[in-house]
């Protein structure tokens, strides 16, 4: 399939949440020498010892915020985020109420201590507003909003540690939290990023690789329906390479999906045994 045809396919399948924007970088510290750095050594190993197509270690836990309706922690290597879901509940701002579907809201925030340098209080800056919007649109695409008219679902994601790939981690955490809250969805959404450095496609970039200035493709998919709901890239990339990098990111998403499924299954089994079924 040609790229043009691919793009049309995705546009058709995903509607308005197809976004191609330039990402703002999460952290300020960027060294000039990074562009000349060797990100893949001759043995084919990356800076943190991974192979190019290897993902960081995943860890997820469900039910971490006891007061929320659904919550989860998701870790990809050193990146760690918490997501909490409140709802479906009464719409707080009546003017936003819709009579045929649920209102989905999302807020993304970063803890002061999440980055290497201490951040100085930028609440509601452009980057977090953009990520909030991306997460909201991605999650909206999979929630069956028409089943819960005149109600509101809040998704709050909090970054505890940022080491690249925060938006992917946030989407994965949000999926788990929504599933924990028992909110009806067409499929789970999973996300993963991939980049292209030193002529090698790399899966799941960490912070150092992310700040190298190379392309960074973030993909979000609905694994069962085989549709792409999120696609973002910054920097430039050859057409043919884009296809392979995106393919790699999609494979990453599928790997995340199978892990998330495992976690959800384990959680359900535990609930079952607690209820004595």
């Amino acid at each position, binding site marked *: 399939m040609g790229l043009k045809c691919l793009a049309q396919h995705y546009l058709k399948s995903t509607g308005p949440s197809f976004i191609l924007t330039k990402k703002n970088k999460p952290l300020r510290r960027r060294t000039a020498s990074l562009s000349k750095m060797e990100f893949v050594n001759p043995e084919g190993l990356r800076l943190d010892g991974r192979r190019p197509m290897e993902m960081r270690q995943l860890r997820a836990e469900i039910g*971490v915020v*006891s007061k929320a309706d659904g919550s989860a922690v998701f870790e990809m290597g050193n990146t760690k985020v918490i997501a909490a879901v409140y709802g479906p509940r009464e719409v707080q701002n009546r003017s936003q109420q819709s009579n045929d579907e649920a209102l989905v809201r999302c807020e993304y925030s970063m*803890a*002061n201590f999440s980055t290497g340098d*201490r951040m100085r209080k930028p609440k509601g800056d452009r980057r977090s507003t953009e990520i909030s919007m991306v997460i909201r649109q991605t999650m909206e695409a999979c929630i069956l909003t028409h089943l819960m008219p005149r109600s509101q679902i809040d998704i709050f994601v909090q970054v505890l*540690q940022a080491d690249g790939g925060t938006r992917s981690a946030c989407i994965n955490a949000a999926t788990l939290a929504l599933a924990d809250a028992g909110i009806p969805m067409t499929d789970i959404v999973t996300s993963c990023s991939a980049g292209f450095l030193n002529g090698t496609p790399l899966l799941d970039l960490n912070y150092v690789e992310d700040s190298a200035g190379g392309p960074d493709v973030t993909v979000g998919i609905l694994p069962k329906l085989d549709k792409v709901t999120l696609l973002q890239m910054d920097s430039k990339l050859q057409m043919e390479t884009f296809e392979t990098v995106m393919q790699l990111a999609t494979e990453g998403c599928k790997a995340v999906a199978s892990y998330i499924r495992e976690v959800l299954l384990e959680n359900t089994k535990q609930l079952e045994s607690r209820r004595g079924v």
Partner: protein
Amino acid sequence: MLTFQLFMYILAVMVGLSLGEQTFIKGGIDQDLRTDGRKRLTYRPIFVETGIIPQASGSARVKLGATDVIASVKAELGKPNPSYPDKGKVSIHVDCSPTAEPSFEGRGGEELSTELSSALERCLLGGKSGAGAGIDLSSLCIVRGKVCWDLYIDGLVVSSDGNVLDALADAIKAALSNTAIPKVQVSANAPSDEHPEVDVSDEEFLQFDTSGVPVIVGRHYIVDATTEEESQMSSAVSVSINRQGRICGLTKRGGAGLNPTVILDMVSAAKHVSEQLMNKLDSEIAAAEACDEMES
């Protein structure tokens, strides 16, 4: 009297308690048996985990029932305030994440964040000069008037079920005891030039404090209130007490007036509770650190 009742009513609506539930909570407190089976002066179990933020100089997570907070300490080199050349600087900042409460969304948590930060600063930092502070500010000075350590203490409320202030104070205490500040050597000829060495100094904060919050409900006071109980309180007094049993800071929250003798009573109750809490927290921190070392 009327205004007081109105105040109670508004709070009850916020948490969504029925009249029956309100009476149940108050009745339980009268009989020294609270809804979760505790006595008036019993704390919820504390769970401490240290060293959870790798990029911070020190960090800790404290769970107090369903309340869950994280504190981190970051040390940076800075310049001392010209008025106090031989003192380091410490700033405390608390953030209330919307994951804890949907109403903290956007700027919604800012009021509570400011209230908590200033209460903690009052308890830990003492006066402007740093006199009477829980943290010894002169130990942070490196070269008089030139270089000192700036400690940035960040708190994050992840989940809140009442008594966030205590949980934060405990988390900060645990994070500080987990903090390792690098030793700094100053070369004699260039006073402003410093070389942080890698080896880590001992814990600098031997004396430290914690706070007990007796909350008054009706005629009795209770300690470590949950959200439901907090919704029924007319006022709360937070007392921070150090190991020697001295009071380091005091904050009263809530609008209702209190009889001065009741306040004194509450302070002594706080002192009594804090002794047990201090020992418990110390053993928890020691256990968490031991666990940390095992892993590494």
